[in-house]
């Protein structure tokens, strides 16, 4: 069995306590010796709106798309979509998928040369076309890369409507080039489609970003892995969050699965490890009671890959119940860190410097205490950190837009702590 699921928690609760927290570490060594258990389909969506002509973005995007195509394994299905006011399929013929081979990849690279920047931005339409193409290959590991440089031009609410209809059909990593796109918009897509979002400030960085995304996608061996959470009667799931490698709230993505159980989508998996924070509300027990608060399984269809138990034990011994599990404390802090940064950025945009200073100060403190150096360095581009330990910061008068967007997109990135308690 390539998957393991391990629970980290302090199962001891004080009398009257009703909240059970656990970190579940799911690790896969990659199924079937690293071979895919399903077929795979890759779709590259490149923004070809008029603004892409600026700063040599379109030529950099062509280079990046070509590099990504070269990373596609033989036998994988693929297509390229040119994003303008409508979605246009650049390769292969409209409505079709190509099967990757040296020949088809060379054909694709030639067709990318025809990519011209002119027109608008219609992300809903682009994603809808991708979903239609993916629908030809049900059961495949379905992954898309979306590149844009601007705001969505579709009518208000259309993108959300599309996302509702296609959620769960494929995963999508989103990249914004330059600084004229909205982090919130791409985050909405990435969150709905279980992908990542990041800024590529300079067009010259696109090739590396595309290669990295495609290489990672090629490492996926399972298409649709889910976390199944069973809870006893009168108990309820307060939240299920991915907390490593980055924070992603999965609570709202639950689908019911039999009595007292629900499934949360984890997307596609390769040889990797991720952490999930599960929080359960249970009825209070008496001293000495032991309850199974949740049975957490890693499932793919009807196959249970691994299972872990989240327990609740009520005790009068406050020495036992007062200990907060180190993993739970750490990831609670990492989730708060992401929230503090996003709240700080919003307050700063709204001109509320006082709130922004408080939020960024708290973020600096959390990043420093948890050893999240990458986030601490990003924070330092937006505020002057005078004393990270106490959270004393000063807002910078002049902040590069790219720096603030990098802080925003990467605020959800977390670090791990040692495994011992």
């Amino acid at each position, binding site marked *: 069995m390539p998957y393991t699921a391990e629970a980290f928690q302090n199962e001891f609760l004080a009398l009257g306590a009703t909240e059970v927290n656990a970190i579940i570490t799911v690790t896969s060594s990659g199924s079937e010796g690293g071979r895919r258990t399903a077929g795979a389909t890759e779709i590259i969506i490149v923004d070809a709106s008029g603004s892409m002509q600026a700063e040599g973005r379109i030529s950099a995007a062509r280079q990046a798309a070509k590099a990504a195509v070269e990373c596609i394994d033989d036998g994988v299905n693929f297509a390229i979509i040119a994003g303008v006011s409508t979605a246009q399929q650049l390769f292969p013929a409209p409505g079709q998928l190509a099967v990757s081979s040296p020949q088809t990849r060379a054909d694709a690279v030639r067709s990318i040369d025809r990519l011209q920047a002119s027109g608008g931005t219609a992300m809903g339409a682009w994603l809808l076309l991708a979903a239609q193409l993916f629908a030809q290959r049900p059961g495949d590991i379905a992954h898309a890369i979306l590149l844009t440089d601007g705001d969505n031009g579709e009518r208000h609410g259309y993108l959300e409507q599309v996302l509702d209809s296609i959620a769960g059909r494929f995963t999508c990593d989103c990249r914004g080039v330059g600084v004229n796109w909205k982090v919130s918009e791409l985050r909405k897509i990435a969150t709905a489609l279980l992908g990542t979002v990041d800024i590529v400030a300079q067009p010259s960085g696109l090739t590396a970003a595309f290669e990295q995304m495609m290489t990672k996608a090629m490492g996926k061996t399972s298409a649709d892995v889910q976390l199944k959470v069973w809870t006893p*009667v009168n108990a309820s799931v307060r939240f299920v969050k991915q907390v490593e490698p980055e924070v992603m709230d999965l609570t709202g993505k639950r689908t019911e699965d*039999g009595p007292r159980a629900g499934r949360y989508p984890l997307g596609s998996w390769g040889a990797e490890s991720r952490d999930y924070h599960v929080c359960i509300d249970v009825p209070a027990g008496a*001293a*000495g*009671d032991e309850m199974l608060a949740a049975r957490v399984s890693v499932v793919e269809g009807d196959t249970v890959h691994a299972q872990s*138990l989240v327990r609740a034990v009520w005790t009068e011994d406050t020495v036992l119940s007062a200990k907060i599990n180190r993993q739970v404390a750490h990831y609670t802090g990492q989730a708060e860190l992401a929230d503090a940064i996003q709240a700080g950025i919003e307050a700063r945009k709204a001109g509320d410097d006082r709130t922004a200073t408080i939020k960024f100060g708290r973020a600096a403190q959390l990043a420093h205490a948890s050893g999240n150096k990458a986030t601490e360095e990003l924070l330092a581009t937006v505020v002057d950190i005078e004393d990270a330990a106490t959270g004393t910061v000063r807002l910078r008068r002049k902040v590069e837009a790219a720096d603030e967007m990098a802080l925003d997109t990467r605020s959800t990135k977390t670090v791990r702590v040692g495994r011992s*308690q």
Partner: protein
Amino acid sequence: MTMTDCASCADERAAGAAFCEACGRALGAPCPNCGIPGGVGEDGYCQNCGMLAGRPRDHIDIDCGEVAAAVTDRGRRHHRNEDAMWLAVRGGDVDVVVSDGVSASFDPDVASETAAGTAGALLAESPDVSAAILGAKRAVAELASTGDPRRATSNPACTIVVATVRGAEINIGWVGDSRAYWLPPEGPAEQLTEDDSWATHAIAMGADPIAAMQDPKAHAITAWLGADASPVLPRTGAFTVVGAGHLVLCSDGLWNYLPDPESFASTVRAHLHAGGTLISAARSLVEFANAAGGADNITVALIPVSSPAPAPDSSPATDSAPATDSAVDSAPATADEPVKE
């Protein structure tokens, strides 16, 4: 709570059936907590309310007829039984061990089970109580580097009290606050062990006994078995019984409710004289502790011992009166010694 649904699939036709009509799953035992038929799943938790149905160690009786009896019980307030015991009878020879896991350590139930099992197995080879305790100490210390990695930061730990009975000869040894008593036919019980506890040492150093026993640290133990224990010097005693009486070993789950030798003697004697068997007396002593609150795990072992030629004096003649520590006793502890709660 309806009594008519399958815990697995919520079908309502399962009442009284051995299998659920809808999902076909075998219906196991009803859940002792919520009563749902077939509620208890393979992992021991109810598939409806999630409560643990019980563990084999929650209550264990060992009935050796008229020779010896021992009972261990989870009590009322702890979620599992972290006490363990060993009772072996060969003809009239008896080996008995009681061990109590330190709750603040990780896997204390494994510590006590390891200690009792190791010491008991060693006693079967040689009736040397010191060697048995030292063997148990090594086995418990090794637990810190095996199994769950969390054991390394809070290593499994436990107490131990060991006794061998060979005819009228009794040997005891202990570390921690699990006790052995001699119960004569009348009069107060004689505590054969001296707790390795903060209160005992504070009193020995001149503290007011009542104040010391009320101190929050009173029950913290000053010696234990475990990887973090100071070098263990088992304290031992050897006695020859004159007359007849009962050797009683127990964990603090019982003696906490019978702190003075008079009440201990009268209560144990009342249960022994209730007219039942030895095992029924041990069981009813456990029930007594549970009725009093059952705040801790409870273990009690009862072994009748008599001299071949009964004499008028029924108290045990000790090799070194009074019947407390022998020559290998460890040095008296200081008040600021490390303790375990």
